[in-house]
């Protein structure tokens, strides 16, 4: 971990970890582990699955999922009203928390949870979404992933893997090596860059899932080696990752137009996106990250002397057209022909 430079004030916002995963995947075990471990942190927990956690030191609040759409009809602007309410009340308390954990139900869609942290200014000012951590039951996840849903109904297991910043592959003691390999391959086919943490009884080294800064643009820049991993499509899956790695500088106007149109028209199907880009004429790297249509971006570190101007981005989503994405992005290069 690097120490922050004096001119860059520390982000004082309280980190929030979202724990997702199917019933039986070990969320409660992990939660109890986090709460009982001697880390000295004051933690507040918002539980969507009732009454299983109880630790004296932690504040545990129950909640029932309330998904709110906005009047503009954009499904990407859905937020979790229950979280806005509870987090708002939590922030008004005198005691300060070092960390907040949100345990979602096994069937929860992670998108409204994540979007809440971007859509609500009061929350965004005081809290930061640290990471979406998805627990996966190594013995049963394939069965959930393979479940055929009726038209228009999401497969929550697929979504939770697609949205994840960290995956705890739990219960590895219940399966053999080949099963672990198969599950890992299936996870990678959906979310190629995600860090997979194998575990038994949800026993993990907590810094792997707490305060990882997955939504922190600065840390996206920290060049996570797994940021882009090409996937081999050995499985017929509709939710996939498309990674693009392209040398050159981008025409900002064309990039904005392309990305704007892409997210407007395909945002429903693009669950997560992130990238580090080289804009023509910009001395700094441009870093962005998005959930569906919501995108936040800013300039990051300076390009180093002699450093190759390189663009790396990844989209995770449903029915992604890899060729069209690659072509569309290549057309944003400043050296590409005149804009269409």
């Amino acid at each position, binding site marked *: 971990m690097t120490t922050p430079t004096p001119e860059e004030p520390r982000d004082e916002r309280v980190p929030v970890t979202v724990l997702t995963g199917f019933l039986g995947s070990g969320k409660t075990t992990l939660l109890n582990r986090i709460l009982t471990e001697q880390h000295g942190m004051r933690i507040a927990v918002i539980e969507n699955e009732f009454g299983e956690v109880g630790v004296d030191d932690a504040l545990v609040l129950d909640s029932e999922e309330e998904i*709110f759409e906005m009047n503009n009809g954009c499904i990407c602007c859905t937020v979790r009203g229950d979280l806005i309410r509870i987090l708002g009340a939590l922030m008004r308390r005198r005691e300060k928390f070092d960390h907040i954990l949100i345990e979602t139900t096994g069937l929860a869609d992670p998108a409204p949870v994540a979007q809440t942290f971007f859509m609500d200014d009061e929350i965004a000012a005081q809290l930061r979404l640290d990471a979406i951590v998805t627990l996966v039951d190594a013995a049963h996840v394939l069965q959930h992933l393979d479940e055929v849903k009726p038209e228009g109904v999401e497969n929550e297991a697929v979504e939770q893997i697609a949205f994840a910043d960290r995956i705890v592959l739990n219960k590895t003691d219940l399966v053999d090596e080949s099963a672990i390999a198969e599950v890992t391959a299936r996870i990678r086919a959906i979310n190629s860059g995600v860090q997979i943490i194998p575990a038994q009884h949800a026993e993990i080294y907590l810094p792997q899932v707490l305060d990882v800064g997955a939504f922190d643009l600065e840390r996206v820049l920290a060049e996570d080696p797994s940021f882009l991993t090409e996937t081999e499509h050995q499985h017929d899956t509709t939710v996939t990752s498309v990674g693009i790695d392209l040398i050159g500088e981008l025409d900002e106007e064309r990039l904005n137009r392309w990305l704007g149109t892409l997210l407007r028209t395909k945002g429903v199907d693009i669950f997560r996106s992130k990238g580090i880009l080289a804009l023509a004429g910009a001395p700094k790297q441009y870093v962005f990250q998005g959930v569906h249509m919501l995108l936040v971006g800013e300039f990051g570190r300076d390009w180093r002397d002699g450093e190759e101007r390189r663009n790396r981005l990844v989209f995770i989503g449903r029915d992604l057209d890899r060729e069209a994405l690659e072509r569309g992005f290549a057309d944003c290069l400043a050296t590409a022909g005149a804009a269409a």
Partner: protein
Amino acid sequence: MNITAPDADLATAWDTAVDDAPVALSARHDLIAIAGAAGTIWILDAATGACIDTFELPGGALSVALAPDARHAAATGPTGYALWRREDGRTTVRDTGAWSSTAAWADNERVAIAAGRRALVLAPGGGELWATEPAASTVTDLAWLRQGRRLAVAAYGAVRCHERHTHKPVMTYPYIGSHLALAVAPTGRWICSGNQDASIHIWRTRDAGELTMSGYPEKVSRLAFDDTGFWLAADGAPDVTVWDFSGKGPAGTAPRSLRCHETITALAWRPGGGGHLASGGADGTVALWRATAGRPESRISPARILDGDTTVAALTWAGPELLVSAYRDGRIRAHRLPSRTTL
């Protein structure tokens, strides 16, 4: 940003502190109630600031409301509500497990309490008089209309009006979105909701004609009519906006803008309908405004600014002469205005 110098000559009537972060204030008759986030409610004598009683709402508090005659108080919180009786200090606690956002007294004998997705109408002792059917989400705000015969309930997707004789709404004012705050004009002519989608939605009660004031930079979570019902103040931006609801209402008009805070944390009209408004900010300042002066679209400067150290948690008026401010650090201050009508 100090547009006028911090004011030294506004007398401090009293200054006290509670041992918690206050989240709400209520002033009625001769009392003031302060709700602390952790669930203690302090009852103070408005004239002196002396604490006359306290009661507890386990699970924390979100709001408190004194009855008009101050003989009872209702406190609400994340896991239930409590009713307090002045006569003997008796407290009735209902740990329902349901989120109770707020309470609103119709008169001295009836209080509406938000309880999860329903609103309950209770006698001051806690007996249930009637209840609404569940709304689409947890109830966010309540307001009485028609001299306490009709209850407006804000929740996701609509403001629903209920009366005693039926569980079903007698009138539904739909608008897709999360209605965070409710204001009903004392004239009964308008129902307004502040919205998560950064707008104010307005219905004319007569014919349910609607209007949306959109374009706020942030969600609108505080809005209030003054005593005349002609003026609505709202947050949703660094500026407090004040809309003119006289005549045909605000359609096609621009609001007055009141610039003092970066983040508005409290709004309270001075009783009496003189157009005086108090606002509080996250930076600890309390501003007093002649909020209806000038022309539409004009930017108004504060008439007075009271500086504070920590976030203003709540504001209320104990009559037109006493402004009570609660700060996040537990400080409670009462300022006396020079007269009933001047600022």
